[in-house]
């Protein structure tokens, strides 16, 4: 009797393992097939938004420090604001057009991942939203041009305060605040710590 039971358990275990192994195999095959494509898509998405900021640029390189690690990577500035990385945008003549700052800020429905261009003369070039999960119809209007265009040409020393120099999205103060604060704080942080970077570039 007991032996029988043990046998049954072993049989069941083997069956389940078999199913799992087959499933795992199928998954790994799909994964390996699709992985390059997925990476390509993600890169394309970032690149597209970078391109939309600096249409003249042809190369975007990740800024790294001396040990070849990306600088400011996952740098937490505030509880809800994180810097992701910084790219340099250069045109055909290898001329530095500006920096592209990628970061995220916690909005109403989750992190808003943004990227913006920082011109060499300390003005915001333009802002683009890569990812967000704001309320459709309200906070989701954060991707609309009439809101984002307000940041164009702003000096890093400007206030970036909602209802003062930034007109918020209607009935979505949190989203508007999140983005403007995210830009302000990240740009301030970058300005304070970028000296080495600019030096490096001048060299």
């Amino acid at each position: 009797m007991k032996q029988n039971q043990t046998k049954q358990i072993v049989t069941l275990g083997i069956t389940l393992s078999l199913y799992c192994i087959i499933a795992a195999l199928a998954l790994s095959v799909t994964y390996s097939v699709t992985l390059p494509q997925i990476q390509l898509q993600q890169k394309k998405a970032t690149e597209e938004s970078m391109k939309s900021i600096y249409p003249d640029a042809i190369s975007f390189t990740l800024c790294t420090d001396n040990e070849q690690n990306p600088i400011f990577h996952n740098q937490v500035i505030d509880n809800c604001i994180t810097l992701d990385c910084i790219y340099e945008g250069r045109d055909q003549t290898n001329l530095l057009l500006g920096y592209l700052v990628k970061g995220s800020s916690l909005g109403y429905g989750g992190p808003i991942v943004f990227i913006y261009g920082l011109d060499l003369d300390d003005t915001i070039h333009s802002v683009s939203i890569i990812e967000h999960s704001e309320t459709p119809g309200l906070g989701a209007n954060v991707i609309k041009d009439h809101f984002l265009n307000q940041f164009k040409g702003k000096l890093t020393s400007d206030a970036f305060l909602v209802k003062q120099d930034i007109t918020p999205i209607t009935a979505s103060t949190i989203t508007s605040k999140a983005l403007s604060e995210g830009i302000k704080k990240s740009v301030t942080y970058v300005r304070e710590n970028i000296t080495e970077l600019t030096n490096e570039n001048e060299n």
Partner: protein
Amino acid sequence: MSNYVITASPHIRNKINTAFLMNMVSISLLPATIGGIVIFGWTNTLPLIALSIISAVVSEALFQKLLKLPMSYLDGSAIVTGFLLALCCPPGIPLWLPVIGSFFAIFSKQVFGGLGHNPFNPALIGRAFLVLSFPAHMTSWLKPFDVVTTSTPLAVFSEKGMSGVLGLFQGSVSTMHKSMFWGIRGGCIGEVFILGLLLGLALLLLTKTIQWYVPVTYMGTVFLVSWMLGMDPIFSILSGGVMFGAFFMATDYVTSPMLPQSKIIYGFGCGFINVMIRFFANMPEGTTFAILLMNVITPMLDNRIKKPVGFVKEKTS
């Protein structure tokens, strides 16, 4: 010999009927309404109120016809719904808003079976619908005696705190209290003229249309809780629609409890949630949702057994 009509006792009835009670609420709203009309100008308010009432009555008749219910659209309840909805809208909003709001309010009532069966206060449902659907319109306020938009003291409070509010009133607390009492501030049509609201409450209490429990516990809780949270308690009972809600919305018969003890719990709950929304949520005003939330648990509050006079607890052996 002649045959007389046979009915069961009692053979006389009180003259007060549903229509009387509903009309009493409408009449009690008049002082605050007149205040609002004077403060915001009649062009910004009167057409809005009229359209809201007409649309409520028409929608009620429409639904009753459609659902083959007894036609009672003139019993005053639809008028009250439309009236209340108009009074908790900002002045000067596009006129199609109250029409849609009233329609939706009546819809929310009829879909549950009409007057007496609706779990939520129809006027508040109408307002909630408008606030959720057209937030831009429902949060743009008119300056008193002017056509310039402004923000309500509460919105200023949630943005900049008390100092910002005082800035609106030349930095003096007493000026603030005074002008808020007389309604010289941004806000909904019906909620700004505090004296009118108090007159309305007095009328409702004197005619025994409502009992004191809900308004008193509601206002008392708002006063106490905001005081404990370090907010100027007088500011917090004068601002926003708390008084309007406590006097006219939370006391709605159908959606509030019937027993005195339950009424007290209900009033406390409304006040508490209201202050919590004001303080901790991303919303300057919380009256609408505080009352709607308490509406949800009204059946639960009423689900108790009142002990009769001379009740003796049976010994459990």
